[in-house]
């Protein structure tokens, strides 16, 4: 017997809708679970005191510093390269075999698993270049990892600048570079910054790359050649080695809050950017 189209329609909406609801429910569960367990432990004191006894007690001050320094260094390296690539792809060249190769390379790099970045960083930066487990090795490895994110987001932002802007600039006698600098980059800026923020987010979330390239020192780093650990690594070590569940939850809560802030600001910025365009 055939089911009347009216009922398949209702059935489809119910099932497909349930799948969407489930996805959102999982997200809410994860955030609520971590915050519920971690917020009671998280305090100003917890954030700004040194850990003691391998992190069994005390706070996460050096970890907080590591979590700020590593993504920062990664972005300082990756942002100019990524934005340069996207400007070149969008403004200085037309589609050709070369751009297809660049795009394919970017896509593949985006798909490379973090453990491979970790292995590479370990053998190349840590061992061959002799940087050891350090902020420098970690920052460089993370920079490789976030490059595709920055390239894609800023290329999209640059391409969304209306054609008319370029035409007006060219008709006034501006060169290509002048047009890019004075017209296109300022207009695409919010989109580009979104890409950079997402790159910072990716670095904060990462664990495997950081363990293999930046090590896991609990001391406050004094130079970029010191080892450090990020909140994700600290949480992993505390939870896996069962050192302190309390401090693990506190760190997890700080980590989730950092991720929420980073992604929310990227989202709001992008939202305003799109609203302005339309």
């Amino acid at each position, binding site marked *: 017997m055939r089911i009347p189209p009216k009922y*398949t329609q209702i059935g*489809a909406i119910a099932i497909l809708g349930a799948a*969407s609801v489930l996805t959102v429910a999982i*997200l809410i569960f994860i955030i609520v679970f971590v915050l519920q367990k971690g917020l009671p432990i998280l305090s100003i004191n917890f954030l700004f005191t040194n850990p003691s006894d391998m992190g069994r007690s005390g706070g996460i001050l050096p970890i907080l510093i590591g979590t700020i320094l590593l993504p920062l260094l990664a972005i300082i390296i990756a942002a100019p390269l990524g934005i340069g690539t996207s400007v070149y792809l969008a403004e200085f060249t037309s589609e050709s075999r070369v751009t297809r190769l660049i795009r394919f390379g970017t896509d*593949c790099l985006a798909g490379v*698993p973090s453990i491979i970045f970790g292995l590479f960083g*370990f053998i190349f930066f840590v061992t061959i270049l002799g940087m050891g487990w350090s902020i420098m090795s970690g920052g460089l490895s993370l920079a490789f990892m976030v490059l595709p994110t920055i390239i894609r987001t800023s290329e999209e932002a640059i391409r969304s600048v209306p054609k008319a802007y370029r035409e007006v600039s060219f008709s006034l006698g501006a060169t290509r*570079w002048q047009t890019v600098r004075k017209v296109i980059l300022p207009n695409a800026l919010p989109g580009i910054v979104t890409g950079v923020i997402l790159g910072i987010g990716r670095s904060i979330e990462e664990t495997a790359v950081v363990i293999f390239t930046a090590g896991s020192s609990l001391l406050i780093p004094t130079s970029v050649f010191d080892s450090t650990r990020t909140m994700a690594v600290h949480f992993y070590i505390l*939870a896996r080695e069962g050192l302190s569940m309390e401090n693990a939850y506190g760190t997890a809560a700080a980590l989730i809050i950092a991720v929420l802030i980073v992604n929310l600001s990227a989202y709001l910025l992008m939202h305003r950017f799109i609203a302005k365009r339309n």
Partner: protein
Amino acid sequence: MKILSEKGVQRLLSVTAFSAISALALIALFIFIEGLPFLFKYGIKDFLLSSEWNPEAGKFGIYPMIASSFWVMLGAMLVGAPLGIAGAIFLAEFAPKTVMHIVKPAIELLAAVPSVIYGFIGVVVLAPIIRDVFGGPGLSVLAGAIILGIMILPTIISISIDSILAVPTSFREGSLALGATTWQTIHMLTFRAAKSGIIASIILGMGRAIGETMAVIMVTGNAVKIPNSALDSARTLTANIALEMNYATGMHREALFATGVVLFIVIIFLNSIASVAIRKKVIKK
């Protein structure tokens, strides 16, 4: 004042444009330099098809890890693909704009949750449930499949939504004008037109599932053997590298890099297929 000349800027930008592809080449080069000699020394067949992994005895067979990676990935696809595609269809075709505005950022946020947090939730919430309901150790292929299935949802949903929305509106209008319901239009027309993009999203999801490390280490139990059931403990290729890299030296370390070579080749292969599938869609448009 002219800091950079027109030609100079163009040259500089064309150099930066090769940063991503150079990074990829550099990574491939060094992983291969460290791993390939071992592969030939030990024998590719022995390395890939032997089941004995015992670094102290000089035995390096990664077949159990290949099998584990495969089963965990397959399980993740069974969880993630239907859920993700269903969510994508609902959001692209049925959901009102306001719902879309709430759900889409939520899905992007799901992609931003650190993998160690997923792994942890798997250990403290999921594994005990599996242990109580189905028996076994809890930390298992099933736990890995469910956690990875959730982790690949954002990849599948966002690429599927894009490819569904890329189907021209005139197709839908034609179908609706003939009296078809929205659902009939979707499964007879939109879904077929968006097929290559949806397949690409699944392939990229497979790549993510095979490549994921931290969450998998935490939830699959890591026993070196071929899993006999979904409730068995398993150790994936990625977990094998991450667990032993810390203390590995000599041959053992080379074997881990060779594992990295295998992983790298599989991922690049999957990405190439996905990239072809996505490009096809663009050309058709």
